[in-house]
Structures are given as structure tokens and as C-alpha cells.
């Protein structure tokens, strides 16, 4: 079993599944459709595990494995092969993606049972898996971009899955168009990269970047880095291109779990991590990455505080956590960012799947104000949701604590770390714990505010849905233990595992001017973040479980601020006013009426016709039928001809 075959099989399995379901799924029964789907996802996972094992036991590791299958583009200097690149980072990504995808496929068997378009859903889901794996195993930027666009396409298809619902198809379009803006930046950045380095292969480009003298080309590198980051901003929903992600909750819940929590949105983080040497050599750009990540994390967390829709709250939470991942990369601790990517994939997808379970029980209702006390009827869902909430809040012992803490430590003392980044991150951690427990309390604890008609419908979900929940809950606990913090005496195995991948970048960052902060020791750094989390939890539990009128009073006292938060800082309205409306008006009044209907249709098409008709109308008068006028013309012609001959001889 060699690695190139395994990787190819890992990629082809979901593609085959997607094709089978897409072409013949309509005629097949639901069990067969789902079998093809989770079967392919399962095979993909098995091949990913086998590939990981083969790679790990080969003698050449930790050197990356590179294999080119065929030449795809060859045009002068530009050469992009269909080539796969497998190193430790790829290993982490493929395992995370395939495991989570497989579990979500299993869950979807139960969740989508009563929905129409069953085969279509699974076809798209498998296609998405293929595209995502292409993205993370690509060996050059063009192939990665194929995967990038592919996941964007699948995201559009799946968000707008209930396409007869106007809001859903609008949300799909919004997602695609907003990420397109980022993709434009990505394309320009890649073009600039090619122009500078005459290659688009990862190995070649990164080697050339590493070989550059320290501060040369920094301007160009910064430009490239920022443009590529723009792509990440779009795809990973950071400021200012995050607006599509909350709307993307229109899609079925497994879609929200897989695409908009665990995998597609993390593609931007993967992009930055993969290009770590580029960013390390352009510290200005990297600082901006960190800044954007930190601000996004805080911004989204504040919005999540007041959301009443369960899935929307989780969506803003995702945006916030993605901000953390970019913060990690942005301060130079790339491994921590990837670590958080992995743990987040587990607990966030679990949160979404549990939310789906709640939604099923509540007959489609997602407003948390109409929930409450669900833990009695939905025991497994509640238990797993609780575990995931503890994980995301950064409670010690659960996965999120380890990864979040590493990022915050990096924010304080990492290569590009600044104390204020750490403090903002800690505040955000506190807010995260608060709003997550608010959600937990409103949904599962306390008195039941469920409407009577829905009460009868409350039931725990089938085992098809609860087993994946339990597996993910297990991962949400143990996934963190792969990296026991240094502060507590551990060896941070995960970070050291990824060291070969990020060492060129770390080397480069070591050369940036160091700074030392006489401030908190590493222990206190960890301590404060834990305290923030516990405070957040305590306040949430106090307000939303024990004494339930404080939120009401606060809403009244700070009504203005509350309004702003509930309306998400009016960003959507702002974009609508500034960008959407002008474009719509211009398109309608000018481009459609004047240019398309007026100039092109009117002048070029109709005008040509009219002109031809008019000229013809004039010329036809020669054909009068009057013989004498014909005779006159003949005579005239003969005279002119003779004159011509006499004049030219």
C-alpha cells in the first residue's frame, strides 16, 4: 500500500459516492442512498487513517511526501500539476476532516429522513468532502484554489438546499458573492506570487521565499500575504466579510455543522498556516492577520450575547472561534491555531448537531425563548451539548481549554504577541463562556417555556443521530490531551509534532525584533483565562437559571446598546445601503435600461435592422416597374461608362 495510491483512493471515494448518488440517487431507496454516502465517507476516512499510518511509519518522514499524478497546466513558466502534498499538517487536516465528515454523514441519515431531496443532499455532501480533501492535499496554489472554489460551490448548493424558500436561496447567493470578494483577492495574490517567484508549487515557492535575504522583497511579500489573507477573510468569515455565515444557517443543520463549523470555514486558517513562511517573512501582514482575528473574535462574541436563535448564536460563536485561530497564526504560534482548528471541529460540529437534535424535538423551532427544561426529555442531547459547551468555554479538562490557552499564551509571549491582544482574547473567552452557558440554560435548564403543542412532540433523537453526538463528545474531551501545556509540566506534543512544518516560519520570526514583557508569568496567563471562563459561566448560570429577571432589567436599562447588539451592529443594513443598493440601482436604471436595452438592443441590434430597412426603402424606388425609367438608367450608365473610358485613355 503506497501513499500515492492511498491518497488517490481517499479523494476518489467521496467523488464516486457523489456521482453515484447524483446520477441514480433519485431512483434509489433512502437506505441505499445513505449507504453510498456514508460508505464513501467511511472509506475516505479509512484511507486517510491508512495514509497517516503509512506516512508515519515511513523512513522519510517528517519530510513531506510529494507526488505528481499528471500535468494539468503547462504554459511557459506556469506549471501546475495534479500533485498531492502530504506532511504532518496535511495529516492532521485530513484526519480531522474525514472523521468529522463521516460522523456527520451518519447523523444526517437520521436528520434528513423526512426531508425531500435526500439523494441530492448526500450527493452534495460527498462532493464537498472531495473538494475539501483536494484543498488540503493540494501541492500547488491552483489545485488548492480548485478545492477552494469547489467547497464554495457546495456551500452555495447546500445553504440553498431548500431552494423554494426565498431566504434560503438568498443566503446561498450571499455566501457565494461575499466569499467571491475574498477569492478575487486570493487570485490577485496568487498571480503576484507567480510574477515574483515564477512558480506556484508549494515546495518551490516556499524554498525560494526562505532563500531570500531577510528584509528584501518585504513589500511584495506583504502585498501577496495580505491579498491571500483577503481570500481567507472571505472564506473563514472574518471582519469585514463575515456577514454570510449567520445567514448560512438557512441550510440544513448537518450542513452548518460540517461546512460552516468544522471544515470549509477553516480552509482560510489552513491557507495561512500552509503559507506560514510567506507570512513569517512579511511580519506586517502577519500582524494584521492577528489583529483581524482578535477583533473579529471580540466583535462576534458581543453579537452572540444577545442572539435568541440557537443556530445564529452558534454561527457567531464560530466566527469568534475562527478569529481565535487567526489570532494564533497571527502571533506566530501556527501550531496552536491548527490545534484549535482541530478541537473546534469536534466541539463545534457537536454543538450544531445537538442543536439539530433540539430542532427536531422542537418541531423546527429554534428560538431559545421558547425552550427551557429540555434536559429532562433530551438526555443524551443535553449531556453532549453540555460537554461541548464546557469545551468551548475553555474549562480545564476539556479540549477547548488546551487549544485556547495555547493561543492566548502565544498572544502574550509569542513572536508577534502583544499583551493587549492577550487581554482582548481573555475578555472574549469570558464572553464566550457566558453566551454559551446562556444558551445552555435557556435551552435545557430551568422552567419549560415550550408551547403546549410542541410539548407533545418533544422526544430524544434516534440512535442514528445520538451515536455521532456521543463520539464527538468523547473527542471534545480527549482531543485536547495531545498537547499538555508546558506550564503544567507537559511537553506540548502536538506543537512539537507540527514543528517540522512550521520551523522555517518560526526561524524567520525569530529574527524579528524581540520584545520582552515584564508582566505576567506563564502560569498567570493561563490562570486569567480560566478565571475569565469561570466568571462567564457563573454569571450566565446566575442570570439565566437562578434569577431570571436580571437580563430583563439590563435590557431595559441599556436598551440602546441592546438594540445595537441584537441588530448585529447594523452591519448588514450598512452593507445594503453602501454596496448592495447602489449596485442594484445602477444595474437596474443604468446598466439594464440604458446599456443593455438601449444601446445594445436598441442601437446595435434594432438600429442595424432599422437602418437596413431605411436604406432598402430608398433603394427600392429604382425598381419602379416603369420601363422608361429603366431605359434612362441604362442610357445613363452607358454614357458614364463611355466617359470613364475616354477619360482614362
Amino acid at each position, binding site marked *: 500500500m503506497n501513499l500515492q495510491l492511498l491518497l488517490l483512493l481517499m479523494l476518489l471515494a467521496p467523488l464516486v459516492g457523489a456521482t453515484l448518488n447524483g446520477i441514480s440517487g433519485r431512483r434509489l431507496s433512502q437506505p441505499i442512498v445513505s449507504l453510498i454516502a456514508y460508505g464513501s465517507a467511511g472509506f475516505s476516512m479509512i484511507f486517510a487513517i491508512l495514509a497517516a499510518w503509512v506516512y508515519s511509519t515511513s523512513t522519510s518522514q517528517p519530510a513531506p511526501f510529494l507526488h505528481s499524478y499528471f500535468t494539468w497546466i503547462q504554459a511557459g513558466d506556469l506549471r501546475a500539476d495534479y500533485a498531492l502534498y502530504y506532511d504532518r499538517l496535511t495529516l492532521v487536516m485530513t484526519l480531522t476532516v474525514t472523521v468529522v465528515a463521516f460522523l456527520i454523514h451518519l447523523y444526517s441519515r437520521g436528520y434528513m429522513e423526512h426531508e425531500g431531496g435526500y439523494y441530492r443532499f448526500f450527493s452534495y455532501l460527498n462532493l464537498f468532502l472531495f473538494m475539501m480533501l483536494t484543498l488540503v492535499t493540494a501541492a500547488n496554489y491552483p489545485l488548492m484554489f480548485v478545492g477552494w472554489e469547489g467547497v464554495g460551490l457546495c456551500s452555495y448548493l447546500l445553504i440553498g438546499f431548500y431552494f423554494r424558500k426565498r431566504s434560503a436561496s438568498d443566503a446561498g447567493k450571499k455566501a457565494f458573492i461575499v466569499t467571491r470578494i475574498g477569492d478575487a483577492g486570493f487570485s490577485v495574490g496568487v498571480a503576484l506570487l507567480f510574477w515574483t517567484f515564477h512558480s506556484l508549487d508549494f515546495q518551490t515557492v516556499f524554498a525560494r521565499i526562505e532563500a531570500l535575504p531577510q528584509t528584501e522583497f518585504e513589500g511584495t511579500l506583504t502585498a501577496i500575504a495580505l491579498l491571500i489573507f483577503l481570500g481567507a477573510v472571505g472564506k473563514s468569515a472574518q471582519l469585514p466579510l463575515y456577514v454570510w455565515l449567520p445567514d448560512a444557517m438557512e441550510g440544513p443543520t448537518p450542513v452548518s455543522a460540517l461546512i460552516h463549523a468544522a471544515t470549509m470555514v477553516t480552509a482560510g486558517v489552513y491557507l495561512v498556516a500552509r503559507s506560514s513562511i510567506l507570512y513569517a517573512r512579511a511580519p506586517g501582514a502577519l500582524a494584521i492577520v492577528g489583529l483581524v482575528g482578535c477583533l473579529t473574535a471580540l466583535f462576534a462574541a458581543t453579537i452572540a450575547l444577545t442572539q435568541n436563535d440557537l443556530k445564529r448564536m452558534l454561527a457567531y460563536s464560530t466566527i469568534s472561534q475562527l478569529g481565535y485561530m487567526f489570532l494564533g497564526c497571527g502571533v506566530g504560534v501556527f501550531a496552536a491555531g491548527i490545534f484549535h482548528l482541530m478541537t473546534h471541529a469536534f466541539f463545534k460540529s457537536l454543538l450544531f448537531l445537538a442543536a439539530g437534535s433540539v430542532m427536531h424535538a422542537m418541531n423546527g423551532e429554534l428560538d431559545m425563548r421558547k425552550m427551557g427544561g429540555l434536559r429532562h426529555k433530551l438526555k443524551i442531547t443535553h449531556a453532549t451539548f453540555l460537554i461541548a459547551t464546557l469545551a468551548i468555554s475553555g474549562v480545564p479538562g476539556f479540549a477547548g481549554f488546551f487549544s485556547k490557552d495555547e493561543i492566548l499564551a502565544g498572544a502574550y509571549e509569542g513572536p508577534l504577541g502583544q499583551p493587549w491582544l492577550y487581554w482582548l482574547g481573555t475578555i472574549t473567552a469570558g464572553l464566550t463562556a457566558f453566551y454559551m452557558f446562556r444558551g445552555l440554560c435557556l435551552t435545557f435548564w430551568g422552567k419549560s417555556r415550550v408551547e403546549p403543542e410542541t410539548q407533545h412532540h418533544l422526544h430524544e433523537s434516534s440512535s442514528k443521530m445520538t451515536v455521532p453526538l456521543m463520539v464527538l463528545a468523547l473527542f471534545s474531551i480527549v482531543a485536547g490531551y495531545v498537547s499538555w501545556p508546558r506550564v503544567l509540566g507537559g511537553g506540548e506534543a502536538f506543537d512539537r509534532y507540527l514543528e517540522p512544518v512550521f520551523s522555517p516560519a518560526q526561524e524567520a520570526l525569530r529574527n524579528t525584533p524581540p520584545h520582552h514583557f515584564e508582566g505576567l508569568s506563564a502560569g498567570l496567563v493561563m490562570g486569567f483565562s480560566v478565571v475569565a471562563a469561570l466568571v462567564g459561566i457563573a454569571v450566565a448560570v446566575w442570570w439565566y437559571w437562578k434569577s431570571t429577571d436580571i437580563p430583563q432589567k439590563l435590557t431595559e436599562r441599556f436598551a440602546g446598546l441592546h438594540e445595537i447588539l441584537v441588530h448585529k451592529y447594523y452591519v448588514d443594513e450598512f452593507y445594503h445601503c453602501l454596496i448592495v443598493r447602489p449596485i442594484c440601482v445602477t444595474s437596474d436604471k443604468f446598466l439594464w435600461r440604458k446599456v443593455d436595452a438601449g444601446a445594445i438592443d436598441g442601437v446595435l441590434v434594432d438600429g442595424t435592422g432599422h437602418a437596413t430597412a431605411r436604406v432598402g426603402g430608398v433603394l427600392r424606388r429604382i425598381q419602379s416597374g416603369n*420601363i422608361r425609367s429603366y*431605359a434612362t438608367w441604362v*442610357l445613363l450608365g452607358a454614357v458614364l461608362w463611355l466617359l470613364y473610358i475616354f477619360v482614362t485613355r
Partner: protein
Amino acid sequence: MVPLSHYLALSVILFVLGAAGFILRRNIISVFMCIELMLNAVNVAFMAFSRFLGSLDGQLFVFFVIVVAAAEAAVGLAIIIAVNRNRESLNIDDLDSMKM
């Protein structure tokens, strides 16, 4: 000797008269007679040149022209009779059904 230019002048005058009549006459038969006049004007020119250049080619060509004129007259008169049967008129302005 009568100079060549006189003969040519005669030919030109006859031709112009024929052309003018061809355009200006209303009766179809008159138009045909004008056509014959134009052809004969050309015959005069051919004969004159034949005489003054000493070559018999011109006179031969006259034969051709006469034969063609005769054939054409025959066909043309047949057409006129057919048209007259249909339209009951010999006015050339009445034959205008080929207009756009």
C-alpha cells in the same frame, strides 16, 4: 469624297434620335422603331469605317447586326401582341407590374 466625319455625324445623330425616342415615346411600337433606328445608326458607322479603312470586317458585322435586329424584332413583336391581348393597351407606362 464625303469625309468620314460626316458619316459619323450622321450615325451619331441617328443614334441620339433613336435613344431619345426610345425614352420619350409612349407607344410600344414606336419604342421598337426607335430601337431599330439605333441599330441602323450603328450599321452606318460600321459601313463608313469599313469603306475608309478598306477592310470588309465592318460590312460583315453589319450582316450580323441586321440578322440579330430581325430576330429581335420578331420576338419583341410577339411579346407585344401577347401583352396587348392581356392589357388592351399599347402604352408603355401601363406595363409596370414589376415594381417593388
